[in-house]
């Protein structure tokens, strides 16, 4: 058993900390969160040059052959700075789907372009009931035929060149986002995450639009949702760590009643609880990501990490507000954006209740 990072992982994390500190300062994260498009093309290209956008892919398709654990460590750093943009959407979830389900031709056409930052792909999954459960999907389509229906909470659809559309039978379609009949309608989120309602109005679908073999869609989707779930968990852990660091710094330096507020036990004990919440969340995250990376059965571990971290990291953000007092209420302060990102991530790829049901079955509840 070993909790320490490998030299390569240490380098990845140190590079990310340094790069994101320079290229995504808090005012930029806030500006992009408020910006309609919320995308910095120059930053995205630099991330491609660092090999991040192809981290999961094989070398012959422009990737850098990292593990899911590597991705998780990187996303923690992105969470720390509330990095805007479609990294999890395109470089984690859609890339996982293309790797697992794409035909050789689709992989060759898309993966190098995704890794190079030249294309962006997103997944259209959730429907009216809000569930992240692939088994709950109702959208159906004859192939060849026409697709009519609605997907909700589709991330970064405005940037996406391609949409992967999950159907009720577990099949996946790969459609260009500009195909006639596709409309992308923005949802206004608290967090500045760019999410869309995507409507399909008699969109023409041909057999060439299947993502890989239709019967392999369900397994690929499960793997991609696992990657997305853990990536969103990593975002929460990174953001919660940042809230903790900021709160401790504030408690050390903010003087009231003649001494730093961190000298008062009420504040000390609150900070002690934040440490527990962040450390425990990270422990579960790393354990689950390691298991997935090793090819071990990990569905209960993934659900445990997401459910626990969702509660714990949100608690960190909320107590952070109390520690910061009035200054945390300001838009120019980093706290609220970190909080909003945690809140958004906690309900993405399944909320705590949904993952707890997986845990309930795993512990043997009938």
């Amino acid at each position, binding site marked *: *058993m*070993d*909790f*320490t*990072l*490998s030299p390569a*992982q240490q380098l990845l994390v140190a590079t990310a900390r340094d790069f994101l500190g320079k290229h995504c300062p808090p005012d930029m994260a806030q500006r992009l969160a408020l910006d309609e498009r919320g995308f910095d093309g120059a930053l995205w290209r630099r991330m491609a040059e660092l090999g991040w956008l192809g981290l999961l892919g094989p070398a012959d398709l422009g990737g850098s052959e990292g593990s899911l*654990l590597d991705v998780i460590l990187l996303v923690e750093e992105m969470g720390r700075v509330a990095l805007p943009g479609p990294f999890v959407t395109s470089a984690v979830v859609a890339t996982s789907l293309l790797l697992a389900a794409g035909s050789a031709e689709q992989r060759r056409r898309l993966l190098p372009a995704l890794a190079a930052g030249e294309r962006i792909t997103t997944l259209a999954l959730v429907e009216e009931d809000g569930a992240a459960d692939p088994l709950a999907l109702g959208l159906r389509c004859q192939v060849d035929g026409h697709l009519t229906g609605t997907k909700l909470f589709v991330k970064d659809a405005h940037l996406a060149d391609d949409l992967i559309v999950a159907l009720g039978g577990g099949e996946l379609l790969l459609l260009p986002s500009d195909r006639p009949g596709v409309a992308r309608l923005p949802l206004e989120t608290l967090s500045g995450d760019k999410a869309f309602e995507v409507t399909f109005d008699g969109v023409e679908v041909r057999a060439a639009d299947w993502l890989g073999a239709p019967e392999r869609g369900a397994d690929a989707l499960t793997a991609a949702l696992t990657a997305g779930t853990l990536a969103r968990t990593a975002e929460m852990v990174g953001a919660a760590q940042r809230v903790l660091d900021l709160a*401790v710094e504030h*408690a*050390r330096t903010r003087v009231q009643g003649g*001494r*730093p507020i*961190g*000298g*008062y*036990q009420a*504040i*000390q*004990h609150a*900070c*002690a*609880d934040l*440490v*527990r919440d962040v*450390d*425990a*969340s990270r*422990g*579960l995250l*790393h*354990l689950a990501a*390691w*298991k997935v990376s090793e090819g071990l059965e990990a569905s209960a*571990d993934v659900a*445990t990490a997401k*459910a*626990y971290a969702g*509660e*714990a990291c949100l608690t960190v953000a909320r107590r952070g507000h109390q520690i910061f007092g009035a200054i945390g209420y300001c838009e120019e302060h980093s706290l609220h954006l970190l909080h909003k990102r945690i809140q958004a991530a906690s309900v993405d790829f399944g909320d*705590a*209740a949904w993952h*707890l*049901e997986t*845990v*309930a079955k*795993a*512990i*043997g*509840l*009938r």
Partner: protein
Amino acid sequence: MEFGFTPDEQAFRDEVRRFTAEHPPARFPLDGMDAGYGSGAHSRAYLNVLGARGWLAMTWPRAFGGAERPMFFKLVLLEELARAGAPFGPLVGCWQTADAIIEYGSERLRAEVLPAIARGEATFWQGYSEPGAGSDLLALTTEAKRDGEHWIIRGHKIWSSHAGIATHGLVFTRTSRQARRSRGFSMFVVPNTTPGLDIRPIRSLTGEVYHYEVFLDEVRVPADLMLGPEGEGFQALLNGLDSDRFWGRYYKAPALERVLGQLVDYANTTTVNGAPLARDPVARRRLASLATEIAALRALFYRAACRLRDGAPITYETAVAKVMADELGQKLARLGMDLLGPWGPLRAGSRRARLDGRIAHEYLTSLGHTIAGGTAEILRTTIAVRGLGLPADKRS
């Protein structure tokens, strides 16, 4: 990063599992109360069997009769014993005392006490707290005065677990007045047979005896029963605290998992208002949520274990795990009482008691866990000051 156990550790786990299957806890006589920590009751008979397997001394240096097994073997042993519900109450206290004796014990302690620990014969009570010295241990007034080759101890200790059935006390005393409040303390290993010891039971809220108070009236102790450097006892105690907190609670995650498993079985087999309790959405979610917290606790302990093994600095890691272990135990017991409804308050042995009344026992005993070994409040302050670098409050 790697979260598995090695083949050696796994093989040892299998060996312990065979052992616990062949030695059902119910076969062993119990001498003292199960305080609910997950280590079961005090059972000298069980400790003797562990000693005969060589497990009590397995990590010690060969020169002291050990087998120099790696530290993680102790983790495996504790996990498997806790999982089996075995009565190994005094085990960790014995290990910690042995480590201190190996580190800085006298020849006499090494020659007499270590072998008795290895056989499972020696067990220890902690003479730390006093009526006027709880969280503020330095307020203690028990004194030892030098008299030739002996020390004479006079004072009053309290909350000493199993003192009446253990063989030795670890008595923390003031041996000199020093300008600095934390200097001038020394630890003694006092055999229970020493004249002048008056060990009186304190009945606990469960109705059983766990704690004792100990009056020391001119207790004469040979100088070579002092454990550790004279006058530096408090520093030694502080240095050992992180390790004590770790080992004193390590088995709690598997023990809580065991209780959770019993509650899951109960929910699966119990009908409430005409429907299976397992299908009650509130019960279901609370049980699942507890399972995630137990997994989180385990992760904290594993991380602390790696740091202890690797000699990495520990500032708050074991304190965080202890507080979480104790508060989680209380939460689980509370959930258990809720699930049991009117059967919850039935004590063990009562007609109609469910789950052998164990949940009621957990409920009551867990109240003491956030107090013993450093209160949750003291530990949170430690985490904040030592771990996060927040300013110490001079008045606290």
